[in-house]
């Protein structure tokens, strides 16, 4: 079925969902540029991954369900995948930033599990303990 043949309320629903999702994505990207410190900026892409992603995804689900034969839920696959992976990569990025800031002796909270910034790597530790004897 062609997009122009869809019922008008479906077209308006898809249009509003897509525009809202794109606006939320623009808002999140603006936050990446505008916020002052890194630890504020790291939260800004989360709004793209949650609200922006899900709004565009629902627009896509409504559109393909209306143009195709039955419910087209396969676009939800991307949203679920993003919802699973983005927190993991954000936590990795956060830990890397904290590690680098501790190494540069910037004003960040100390590590809860020992002082990682001065800890020697495991393969050098045995050599260091064996050295004084």
């Amino acid at each position, binding site marked *: 079925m062609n997009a122009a043949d869809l019922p008008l309320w479906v077209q308006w629903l*898809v249009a509003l969902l897509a525009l809202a999702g794109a606006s939320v994505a623009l808002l999140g*990207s603006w936050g*990446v540029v505008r916020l002052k410190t890194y630890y504020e900026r790291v939260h800004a892409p989360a709004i793209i991954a949650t609200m922006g992603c899900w709004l565009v995804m629902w627009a896509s689900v409504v559109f393909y369900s209306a143009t195709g034969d039955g419910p087209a839920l396969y676009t939800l696959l*991307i949203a679920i995948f993003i919802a699973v992976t983005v927190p993991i990569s954000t936590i990795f990025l956060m830990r890397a930033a904290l590690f680098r800031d501790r190494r540069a002796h910037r004003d960040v909270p100390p590590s809860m599990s020992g002082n990682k910034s001065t800890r020697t790597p495991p393969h050098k530790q045995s050599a260091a303990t064996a050295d004084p004897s």
Partner: protein
Amino acid sequence: MTGSLAAPLNWALPGAMLLLVLAMLLTLVRLLRGPTAQDRVLALDGMYLNGMLLMLVLAMHYQSNVYFEAALLIALFGCVGTTAMAKFLLRGEVIE
């Protein structure tokens, strides 16, 4: 005016694409300007999310499933790329 109200998808989907391209340009500003390496990785993270949404809107506009598969691949490899770069910043190498 009646034409734009009767066929909202004709202007709404290109409008959404315009907003997403502006969003990508904003993250590009942070990517080029960002004072530290983790800022640049963060900007790239936001950029692949925006690019993925752009692919989905393009799929609706052209009614083609090829863009959907591209969006799936961007989602897949964007996550892997961000994690690999974060690991590199953390340890100095990706696979130990």
